[in-house]
């Protein structure tokens, strides 16, 4: 795909939606630009936090769907969520490979909703990410904004490592650029920075498409997957498995059709495929309950916190398929709890850190 056809696709996708990709905060970019090991490890922890932060809003939208009416939409969101979890895993693998420790089981790991994503400058003061039932508005103004790639001709050249403060000011700050900088800084740390043998790695035998990170080449591969599936800054909207990058996947919901390739020399792209229809009667339009007085929500939050604890252990040495299966069981429980409360109780889960399950009529 040429730059022109890529730009053309981006332009047609942008119609009615966000115009510019998100910017990572200056502080994070500047710190990463310093290039020392601690700064690099800190940046990777930020990346882990960022990859996780999109998951609750995506899941909330997913859970709000009556899948008998919106199976296609559910599939799209589900596929993005699975890949965000993979990105989180890849980031943990990189951090572990460099001797760091992913910190997942803490209240500050979960962003405040509504709010901006951790480490991200909102594109305008009114832009917020919140837990909202699925709608075209949420998909276009929030999800697509999160996933939006750079314009192809704006795509930055890979930076040199360890920049001075002034040069760091000039760096592009999209998420894709952040990962590019990260890759450069890791390379600069050298092969000696990697722990041998591979440490706390979650490999493809446990999580499909994952990469064991033990040197720069594998770290580069891991970062490549994150960028390719997510931001899609590779000159092709389709990733290696033939799925469109997240931004274009969500766009299918807005455009109402699957993204397709139009044969030609060079080929071009348009939303000309099978219909993708959001049936608004098949959405439980409920708000998250943050009052702390709904037992179903409290139980959900306790389960969600248990999942974070389980993932924390998973990424900090209990890297077994048994541990992964335990996490999977908790994820299934979350889905079921959320769908039941949204469809029968008229409330949604609030994804809050809650290490106990208190009763609402406590004093029993």
């Amino acid at each position, binding site marked *: 795909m040429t730059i022109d056809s890529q730009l053309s696709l981006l332009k047609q996708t942008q119609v009615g939606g966000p115009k510019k990709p998100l910017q990572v905060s200056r502080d994070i970019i500047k710190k990463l630009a310093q290039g020392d090991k601690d700064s690099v490890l800190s940046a990777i922890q930020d990346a882990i936090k960022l990859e996780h932060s999109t998951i609750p809003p995506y899941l909330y939208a997913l859970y709000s769907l009556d899948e008998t009416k919106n199976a296609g939409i559910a599939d799209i969101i589900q596929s993005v969520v699975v890949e965000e979890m993979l990105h989180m895993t890849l980031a943990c693998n990189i951090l572990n490979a460099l001797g760091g420790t992913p910190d997942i089981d803490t209240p500050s790991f979960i962003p405040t909703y509504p709010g901006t994503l951790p480490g991200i400058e909102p594109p305008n003061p009114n832009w917020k990410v919140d837990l909202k039932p699925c709608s075209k508005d949420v998909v276009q103004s929030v999800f697509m904004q999160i996933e939006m790639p750079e314009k192809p001709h704006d795509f930055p050249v890979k930076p040199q490592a360890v920049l001075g403060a002034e040069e760091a000011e000039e760096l592009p700050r999209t998420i894709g650029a952040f990962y590019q900088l990260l890759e450069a800084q890791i390379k600069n740390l050298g092969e000696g920075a990697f722990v041998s043998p591979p440490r706390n790695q979650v490999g493809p035998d446990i999580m499909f498409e994952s990469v064991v990170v033990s040197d720069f080449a594998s770290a580069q591969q891991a970062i490549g997957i994150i960028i390719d599936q997510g931001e899609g800054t590779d000159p092709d909207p389709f990733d290696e498995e033939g799925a469109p990058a997240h931004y274009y996947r969500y766009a299918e919901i807005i455009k109402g059709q699957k993204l397709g390739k139009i044969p030609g020399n060079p080929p071009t792209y348009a939303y000309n495929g099978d219909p993708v229809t959001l049936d608004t009667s098949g959405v439980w339009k409920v708000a998250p309950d943050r009052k702390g007085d*709904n*037992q179903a929500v*409290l*139980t959900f939050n*306790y*389960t969600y*916190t*248990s999942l974070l*604890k*389980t993932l924390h*252990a998973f990424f900090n040495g209990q890297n077994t398929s048994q541990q992964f*299966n*335990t996490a*999977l*069981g*908790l994820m*299934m*429980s979350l*889905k*079921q709890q959320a*769908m*039941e409360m949204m469809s*029968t109780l008229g409330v949604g889960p609030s994804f809050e850190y809650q*290490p*106990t*399950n*208190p*009763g*609402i*009529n*406590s004093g*029993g």
Partner: protein
Amino acid sequence: MSYLNPLRLHFAGQFQASVSTVNNDPDHYNNATFKPNYQQPGNANGWWNPRGDGAWRLIGCHVTSAFMADGSAVGQADQIRMSLIADSDSKTSAKLVDLDPEQQLVSQIWGMEVRITDSAGNALVRGCYEPVGFMDIWKRIQQGQGDLTAGAMYQSVLTNLEWGDISASPFLQALKQAADDGLLSIKFNVESYSMASNKPNFTRGRIVGTIGPASATEPRHFVAGRQLLTTTNVQLGFFQPVQQINFCVAVVDQQRGKVYLDLGNALPISTSGGPPAPLGDLQLICIVDPIFRNEQMLIGSIPQATYTNPAWYPQTAGIIELPADRALSQDDLSSIASNPLWLRIASQSNKQIPAVAEHASGLYIRADQFVLRLNPDEQAQAQLYATQFGQPYPNAQVLAISDPSQLQQAPNTSPSAISFPAFITTNEQGIAELPIATSDPGSQRDFIDGQVYGIRVHLTDMLFIPSGNIFSVFNPANFISLLVWEAFEPAEPLTWWGTTDQNSIQSIFQQYANLYPVMQDFLDLSDYQSVRENIFLLQLAFGLDPSDPNSMPVTRDLSFAKRQAILRWMNDPQEGTPRPRAAPPQAIPSVLSAETPDSAAAPDKAASRGGKEAALNRRRSVRFSRHS
């Protein structure tokens, strides 16, 4: 040693039991006649929780008191005072599981992890709760009708203990030391359950319990102690003890000169969630030399003002130390060691009438684990413990008889698929192993797998001694329930559709799809494509040990043969040739509604029809008495 000892903590809070109720009606197991409305709530026939997922949870449970081995309350600074009792923070919820649609009165808790945590939820100790069914279910709440009035108790052990940082709790340090067999004893009482789907407490009830050390040599699921017994005159519905107080147990502590009496599942409650009902002062007495002197020796009194105080039950879990103000003398202890104990209601003018009483012989026998699932041609051992006045009863003859009276089914004439000796003998420790052999029950119940059986054991020494009080003793719940699965031959080659409803994977999954509509949140279990799409998750869940809370089926009612066939099929999930399914016939009334006798006019009659009370009224014993 068990929870009923000085070194213990008490806790109180809520439990959640979100059982599915579509499967409460045996006729719903019939794929051929299943109708979609059976999954709808209420009288449409799904009863009060058709989308239940079987979850069992501990909610808002906190430690209410704790005591050291010398009987003193723990110190002010002991961290246990602020501790919580929680379930797992690293696994999916435990599950509440009935043995069978025709035995719904032994619901077991599977896959529970119990933690004692600090107030922030960090584990101080965690352990695996050994699965057990409830015992001694009765009509506990005086006001109201049906399942809402029921109370029951669970007793088990925590194994695989993992201790955290207990440096801030002398109590936990003492507990760890006392638990040198690596076991903790845990017993809790449940009641005040809500079945009202429009109320915030829906599917939840009150739980109050005790944790203490356990010994490996003692039974895990009851206390080898002084068993105070009763009986009933009421045939229908929940057990109603003749003198209002339910089965309970006491332990005599020779060293401290005290008796620990557990009334946690024995005192009736006036209204849901409230304190025990006022029955007057209670007296624990010993009948010294019942035959000749028949002297009533008072051990201690429990004033009504004490136990009706709303704070008392959560704080003590109903456990009382008597005498309160002194230690029993050596002479007293000597009398108590070989004479029956009674609990009396002081205002009962006839001194010869106890509320609950030890059998005059002091004898007692029970199976420790009383729920068994067996495949055809399998062997099992039921471990029985016999005691006399709380001590092991060695070299005693045990009579084992087939007793299906408490199973909720019509009598049948099929030959039994279980066999066991009529007589066995207890060893030096008072323990006897009853060997049970099974054969293939075949498809006796057509659309319900296998058959359920009951075995009741008696000490022959007890059979010829009068109980010593004016009523005979009988605990309907004290028997062994068994499910024996039938043989299963899948079609070969192994395909989804098979060649008949009896050899297909589809039929098995169709039944689960019918009975557990909550599964629709994930997939359509009755549909080949949907199952194919989710095969990885299903392989995972069906391959787990039943002790894992994620194990499928949640109901743990799948035979080994069927499970193996399913796992083998999932490795190569071929569809085979679709067979037309018979269209369901015109709406037929549920056999359940025809069978259930009308209870007294009750506002939540509809709710009651699909629950435990309704099941009780399908017992063989009840059918027999109604037809006689």
